[in-house]
């Protein structure tokens, strides 16, 4: 019983859940699934520790936009005052151009659950 409880607590600790709001629906994100999605969807242009086509992502959750030193951001992002929260990241990933017109990312993640998973990963200790 105790070992079962320990496993449950361990599983909870291993997976950071985060919720994002889509209209009236709240979607819970799974960081482990988000990591896999990040690796298949995002790593063509991004990595956690190095800016490539897009800026490095480590520590992105909770900081202002356009803060990675040395990365050549669009004017639209430089002028933005957005802070990357679960809600703002959700809007960004759903439709970057609608959220911050004039930005350069042409990629979006239409599925709310997948966005929540990716955001949970970005907010997790593995990406902080």
């Amino acid at each position, binding site marked *: 019983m105790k070992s079962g409880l320990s496993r449950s607590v361990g599983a909870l600790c291993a997976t950071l859940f985060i919720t994002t709001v889509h209209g009236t629906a709240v979607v819970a994100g799974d960081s482990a699934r988000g990591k896999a999605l990040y690796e298949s*969807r995002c790593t063509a242009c991004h990595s956690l520790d190095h800016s490539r086509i897009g800026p490095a992502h480590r520590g992105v959750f909770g900081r202002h936009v356009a803060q990675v030193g040395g990365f050549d951001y669009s004017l639209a992002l430089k002028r933005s005052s957005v802070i990357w929260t679960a809600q703002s990241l959700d809007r960004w990933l759903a439709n970057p151009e609608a959220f911050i017109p004039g930005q350069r*990312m*042409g*990629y979006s993640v239409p599925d709310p659950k997948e966005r929540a998973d990716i955001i949970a990963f970005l907010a997790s200790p593995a990406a902080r």
Partner: protein
Amino acid sequence: MNKQQSFPFISRRGVVLGAVPALSATAVALLAGRPAWAAKRETSHDAARDASVLNTALALEHEGINAYTLGAQSNLLQKPVLTVAIKFQDDHKAHRDRLIAAIRRLGGTPVEEKSLGEYAQALEVGKLKSQADVLDFAMGLERGAVNAYLGIIPSFADRGLAKLAGQLAADESGHFIVLTQALGRPLPAPMSFGV
């Protein structure tokens, strides 16, 4: 004018005046009966947006070309594999040239290539210690490129450019498959790209 009549007037005026700041120049032109000007402006905006998305793709191709240079210079690739790597790099150069031409046609400025050293650092190529490492690294980049091209297809206003992105995705997919086979990995499952 009685009170009951004035409310709708004020309300309509308020709606119109309140809405003006939110209208785009294109919408204002349409309201002013200048649809041709509005259409031209919208087309120009679409072209600039398409050029911006193509520039992201071009940056990806620059990175791919340099990644294969780094792989070739690593002295980790044996002759038959090296020949294939150089062929793939030539494909990426052809992609680069197509993208540059398309960006210029749209009135955009193609993004420039970075230095080989910058790519080496960003891609952490110092971690590659064997031919299998290089192939695995290249396979990851090719898979990422397939997913990136599939992901940008819906962004284009010009359907011809969406087709171009599809063609590029098909090439990258071919590269990915060859690399999986060189590494003895299983063939991808159906519908496994872009997910």
